[in-house]
């Protein structure tokens, strides 16, 4: 190295001076970041803090839970399963055979309104044990094809329902569209008057505007040997085929409801509604069930006690914990940060 390096053997009083400039130049630039000295707040779990947190949580949660529960209870819901009832008695041994036959599947059910229902009343169909989330199923669609007429040939992901035998593309392709739900419902009131179902606006607006093309028309749909579900009117563009749009918003769980339409009149308690339905859809092969649901909504959505109950449970639990901690604190106080708890301080022979 260089000669001004101080070495003990060089001796002399000059060496100290020689190092002075070096020291300064090599000193790292000071910053609080590099020196890890940023101001920090270091909260610790003091009893006061923890107990008040729990109390606060419980005081917030219990009211929310009650409000949610009331909201859910306010929702009036009519759920009517019909998958067995709509099979003629003589066919009940062979439901699958019946549903696949060409027999008339019209079925009439009666519903009684348990409470006043104010419009809009949503009409859903509920399927159980239907795996819309099955891997083969859920990917079997082509969003490009749905969006624009130029992409009719984009059927790569749609197998096995991608093209006809001759190779012309099916629009809309894929298993989801192919298995479109095809039960239909008509409501008449007891006095014979029609209860109209508004089927417009049941799908997401964004889907109608962006995902399903205005000038994409169904073609070759349900033309194969195997017929899945509903057929589509080839003169109506996809963006207006709202049943299809709703159906293609696949469900995450095997039990799901899909919007069928809206009833825009109020129903009175005790009203009897006659439902004329076409029981077309085959859920019998896989022991699926079908339900017709009429429901009002609250600010939280449909009838669902879970949220309210969960809130009450959590709130109650927090309250309970807070009480327990208070008791422990009172019965067995413990000085925080008491050094005498350090094991090495307890060791009598220790340092």
């Amino acid at each position, binding site marked *: *190295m260089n*000669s001004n*390096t101080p*070495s*003990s053997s060089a*001796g*002399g009083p000059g060496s100290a001076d020689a*190092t002075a400039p070096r*020291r300064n130049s*090599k000193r*790292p630039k*000071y910053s609080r970041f*590099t*020196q*890890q000295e*940023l*101001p920090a*707040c*270091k*909260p*610790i*779990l003091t*009893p006061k803090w923890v107990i008040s947190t*729990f109390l606060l*949580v419980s005081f917030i949660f219990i009211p*929310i839970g009650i409000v*949610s529960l009331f909201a859910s209870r306010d929702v009036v819901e009519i759920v009517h399963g019909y998958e067995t009832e709509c099979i003629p008695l003589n066919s009940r041994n062979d439901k699958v055979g019946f549903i696949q036959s060409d027999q008339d599947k019209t079925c009439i059910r009666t519903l009684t309104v348990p409470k006043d229902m104010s419009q809009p009343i949503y009409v*859903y169909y509920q399927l159980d044990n*239907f*795996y819309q989330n*099955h*891997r083969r*199923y859920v990917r079997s669609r082509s969003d490009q094809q749905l969006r624009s007429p130029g992409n009719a040939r984009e059927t790569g992901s749609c197998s096995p329902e991608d093209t006809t035998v001759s190779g012309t593309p099916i629009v809309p392709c894929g*298993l989801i569209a192919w*298995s479109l739900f095809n039960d239909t419902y008509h409501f008449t009131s007891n006095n014979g008057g029609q209860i109209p179902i508004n089927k417009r606006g049941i799908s997401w607006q*964004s889907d109608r505007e962006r995902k399903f093309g205005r000038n994409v028309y169904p073609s070759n749909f349900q033309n194969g040997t*195997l017929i899945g*579900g509903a057929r589509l009117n080839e003169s109506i563009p996809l963006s207006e085929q709202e049943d299809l749009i709703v159906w293609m*918003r*696949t469900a*995450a*769980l*095997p039990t799901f409801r899909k919007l069928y339409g809206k009833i825009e009149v109020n129903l009175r308690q005790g009203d009897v509604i006659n439902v004329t339905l076409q029981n077309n859809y085959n859920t019998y*092969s*896989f022991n699926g069930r079908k339900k017709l649901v009429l429901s009002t909504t609250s*600010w939280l*959505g*449909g009838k*669902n006690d879970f*949220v309210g109950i*969960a809130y009450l449970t*959590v709130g109650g639990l927090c309250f309970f914990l807070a009480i327990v901690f208070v008791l422990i604190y009172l019965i067995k106080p*413990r000085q925080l*940060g008491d*050094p005498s*708890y*350090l*094991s090495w301080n307890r060791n009598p*022979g220790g*340092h």
Partner: protein
Amino acid sequence: MNQYFLLIACLQLWSLITPVNPASTWGPLIFIFAVSATKEAWDDYNRYLSDKKANEKEVWIVRQGTKNLIQAQDIRVGNLVWLRENDEVPCDLVLLGAADPQGICYVETAALDGETDLKTRLIPPACVGIDFELLHKIKARAHAHAHISTIASCNETKLGMSRGIPEPKLTAVDAMIDKLTGAIFVFQIVVVIVLGIAGNVWKDTEARKLWYVRYPKEGPWYELLVIPLRFELLCSIMIPISIKVSLDLVKSLYAKFIDWDDQMVDLETGIRSHAANTAISEDLGQVEYILTDKTGTLTENKMIFKRCFVSGTFYGNDNGDALTDAELLRAVSSGSTDVIRFLKVMAICNTVIPVQSKNGSISYKAQSQDEEALVRAAARLHMVFVNKNGNFVDIKFNASPIQYEVLDILEFTSDRKRMSIVVKDSQSGKIILLSKGADEAILPHAYTGQQVRTYAEAVEQYAQLGLRTLCLAWRELEDEEYQEWAVMFKEANSSLVDREWRVAEVCQRLEHDFEILGVAAIEDRLQDGVPETIETLRKAGLNFWMLTGDKQNTAIQIALSCNFVSPEPKGQLLMINGKTEDEVCRNLERVLLTMRITSSEPKDVAFVIDGWALEIALKHYRKAFTELAILSRTAICCRVTPSQKAQLVELLKSCDYRTLAIGDGGNDVRMIQQADIGVGISGREGLQAARAADYSIGRVSGTSLFNSVSLMAYNVFYTSVPVLVSVLDKDLSETTVMQHPQILFYCQAGRLLNPSTFAGWFGRSLFHAIVVFLITIHSYAFEKSEMEEVSMVALSGCIWLQAFVVALETNSFTILQHIAIWGNLVGFYVINWIVSALPSSGMYTIMFRLCRQPSYWITMILIVAGGMGPVLALKYFRYTYRSSKINILQQAERLGGPILSLGNIEPQSRSLEKDLSPLSISLPKNRNPVYEPLLSDSPNSTRRSGVPFDFFQSQSRLSSSYSRNCKDN
């Protein structure tokens, strides 16, 4: 691990089985490899630059009588190298000629062994003797226009050869992560097999009935494998791809912090600490054994003459410094014969070179620090060594010059333990032998009749003060006796076989019948703060081993003076020595027995072993010695060779201890490489050695803090992994995330990554997974059961929970932490809003819809409360009623209470003082050498997000497997 990811990535390409878009694996994988490749490339480039600098250093070589300047890498065997003063020796060399008329060349070997004294190299009479190699890296100093012939080049140099092959150093965290990864993998395989079988059964019994799925009648032969493999892919998220890279980045960041740390900067020279191996810094907190070199590491290697004992009088006892002792000064001025002789020996009997600078002041270049100390002290006492001119030595006593002719130098060797010089008084013509050496080498050779007992007592007294002692003696020689001897000496010196031994024998013939003049006591100053630091670290449960080439007594004294071992009543030293197997064996067993007995007592027991016995012990009694090594907290190994140092490290490592080796010299290189953590003291010159102790210790204390930080960083990283995995925005979120490790530092409280913490986290993540899952599917049931929405709700739930988990686990919030935690949360929403605004994305409008729904926010709050409530309660309970040492210290610190018992750390000297607060916190973490779950819920979140993911994945990326999952549940 890398193979694993590669396998996963390849599986992803198989579209039949891949449940998610392959881009979701490949994107991050490519990004991550790009990042790590960039880092490696940068490291390599820097290494290349420094290599290049070393290789291209210009060296003069002599060819056909002319001097040429060539690059160091072009030196070949047989070249003549011409070095100037202060040049670094580029390779192993043999000295052929020097500017000094006597053919003496002085070299400094600080780079090799940390010793800063000059070593003489003579032009060999016949160019034989491997002794004269100037080892690579030695600096040719003083009068050294040496013509040197190259005897080896490049990696064939001794240094190159003794270096050994460095093993890659794996840190404990790495190792643990590897183990845990293995465990996760096994778990994953089990899950995959179970679910795979269930899935296949379900498919055959149920799924074929789902007409809308249209299962083909006949599947390919591998059909059975498809479902398990799919599950494997889903589960692959359990081991985040980013873990390796984030680890690396975090590590290099810590290394940077070490580099940056002000407190580890040597105040005297301004040389900063530098972490060369970026990979191991977080291990510093887990060290259990510290093996340290003595010279230059513990001690400053700066000797100061402190006391002396001349003819029955102790000087310097009163004020601790003989140079200012009035009595001695009086004795000097009054011309007391003994004292004057004593001073003469001090001034002459050495190989020091005085260098007169232009302004007349004299500085000394000495081979040994001891000699320099003596000469300087003599000069202060008016016996000034003025000049050395050829064989003539000029000294000045009270301004009257005296000249001596040096006839012979009987060099110091470690066997003889003394050196002598034969001089002839130029005026009187008397021939005098002047000797100095260790007490055991001088006192027995006193002339019959002289009372050596008082001297022995003086030596004893000084030794107990931790001073190095030298006995000074002289004898007047008869002319004939000398002439006779000189012939023999010359003969011995030029003999080719056993030269060293013969010379020693001849010297022996002259060195007898000494008249003992006195005892000089020299202090080898310890580095500042060494005793305190060692005390602290020992309290922290670190085990210290001192490995030194010094002799036993010195080593023990140093050990005593730096608190290595406690003095008698409290501590006990057990010696293991002996030259034969039997002796060593017996000794070893005795020591072992004592150890076992005393291990329960709060008594410091240390053993001392010398190199010879160590050799035997390692060879024949390895097992017993290993046990001893485990039992004893302190050991002193003296007279050990570099390879023995390395062997010891290996021994400790084989018992699964984390070792840290500190050393500054070339002879420590093996040891440093072998140890889990090597702390090399850079700079290696002169005063900078002074910073050694602070430096290395500072490193340890500074970085044990980081240990937890790295874990925290994983956590945050994982927090963001969902974002990453989530939808389309991998790169974007990844970059934001990459900044988090930097942000999250300075979290105090050490934690250990170990199986039980791991289990704790595993349990917690399982719990959180269940909470998120159940709450989501129940609150988003029926008409709200839309795939994109549900997956987004679950994902947000994970993010929220994780933000709170991190917040709960963070001990110290700086603004950066807030940015990291809450910024992450905000970032999640921002990113998803952006993605939701893109019509082409799958989740178009989803996030906006969700954010408008009160039920979404209600669900989030529910998830957070449901997930965090029990965790907080448990943590609070543990914290307050089952608190670990760390917790208590934290509490004490925050409440401003006394940090008590650490009080004894407080009297620490300078730079360490600043380290105090972190030190006090980091202390307990090292207390127990075994992996004790100090904080079993440490933020090792390896699994944290694992479970949520595996379900989340299935959920967001749909597919039957998920629903089967539920079904199976």
